[in-house]
């Protein structure tokens, strides 16, 4: 990716796209598992327990994921700073909307909103999990009544309307991020083909709307069906 003297702009964009692809695949998996909570609490519990205790997931995939998110974030900020530096004197009359979409111009804003969500998400789900499993050393995944605790914990989170609203908003930002990001990643790795690119753009729009919608649906579903 480099010529010995550090990384080039093209190299940085390729890595940005690769980390983006990785996150896209991760999100597909995550949304599918979460959706189980709507279809079948038992299945959701089983899969959650597997993901939460399987050593491959915990000690191989999870660190890779954490690194992927971190890398994408840092690289996004580096690119943004370099890009700002490339035009030190701004235009007096600037009409960016004349030739490019809002989504494409504001990846750093939508990305940082997603990051803020991830911070809440870690606080809500990840830290408590680490606490139970690795600090208290309870790997059983059971509650005091001897049943799996995952489903009821999830239900409990979506009782709070403020959390549900934040959750929904975050996924709107993710959707905006991916409406540009999905197809952009293909371009960054050099894939642009008359025959396939229109399909990739359509797929990207479907992904960018459907996947965030699934997450929103799950949150709203549990909120509406809550038992006071």
């Amino acid at each position, binding site marked *: *990716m*480099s*010529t010995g*003297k550090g990384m*080039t*702009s*093209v*190299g*940085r*964009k*390729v890595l940005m796209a690769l980390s983006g692809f990785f996150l896209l695949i991760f999100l597909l998996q995550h949304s599918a598992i979460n959706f189980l909570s709507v279809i079948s609490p038992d299945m959701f519990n089983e899969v959650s327990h597997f993901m939460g205790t399987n050593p491959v997931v915990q000690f191989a995939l999870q660190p890779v994921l954490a690194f992927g998110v971190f890398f994408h974030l840092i690289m996004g900020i580096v*690119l943004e700073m*370099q*890009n700002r*530096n*490339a*035009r*030190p*004197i*701004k*235009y*007096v*009359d*600037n*009409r*960016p909307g*004349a*030739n*490019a*979409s809002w989504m*494409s*111009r504001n*990846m750093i804003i939508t990305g940082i909103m997603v990051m803020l969500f991830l911070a809440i998400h870690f606080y809500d789900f990840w830290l408590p999990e680490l606490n139970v499993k690795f600090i208290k050393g309870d790997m059983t995944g059971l509650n005091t009544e001897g049943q799996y605790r995952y489903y009821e914990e999830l239900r409990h989170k979506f009782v709070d309307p403020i959390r549900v609203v934040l959750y929904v908003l975050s996924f709107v930002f993710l959707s905006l991020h991916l409406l*540009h990001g999905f*197809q*952009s990643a293909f*371009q*960054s*790795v*050099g*894939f*642009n083909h*008359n025959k396939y690119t229109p399909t990739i753009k359509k797929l990207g729009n479907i992904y960018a709307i459907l996947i965030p919608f699934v997450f929103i649906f799950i949150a709203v579903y549990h909120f509406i069906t809550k038992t006071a």
Partner: protein
Amino acid sequence: MNLTLKIWRQKDSNDTGKMVSYNVTDISDHMSFLEMLDVLNEQLVNSGDAPVAFDHDCREGICGMCSLQINGEAHGPDRGVTTCQLHMRMFKDGDTITIEPFRAKAFPVIKDLVVDRSAFDRIQQAGGYISVNTSGNTQDANSIPIPKADADEAMDAATCIGCGACVATCKNASAMLFVGAKVSQYALLPQGRVEAKERVMNMVNQMDKEGFGNCTNTGACEVECPKGISLTTIARMNREYLSASVTKD
């Protein structure tokens, strides 16, 4: 028509510069944008003021010298034209028009609306050529068969006139459309394949060294490019670069 012009005035590269307002009257809608500026300059000279410096040469859309950010858009509001081909009929009587130089760290202002685009020349020198023996023993070009589609695409890429509108319009001041075009025009032809790897690596390195930004694939460059250079040229540059960096020793 009568117009108010808000123009960036800057004495030299050290001056901080500022926007200055001027009025021009009786502008014909058949005039080109540069002819309108000629009218202004005549007016300025007659009243003993310094004329507004701006770049131009061919005035027929082929040299790439004219530039100008007009009302926030490179080469103005029309599509597929350079500033010299922009007609005043794109504007209305009473309009206020903002005219600024192309802005990028790699394109420093020399005076008023004139910027130094020699960064593009240095990128070209880094690899935008093929090494051929021109001693008189050159092979007839037609003896190498080239698929029509490839020849057309290479020709389309080669229509880039190096005006810098892509840089000016890009929110990141990225030069990837220009470099993509220059890489593509050679990458598509057998004569260009010989030095393809060194070319793309050297041109990308030079582009970075000049201080242009990274591409975010917003597509603004493609919209504003007077020659309709396609984003596919950037994708080609990216994959040429990727394969070169993986396979080159």
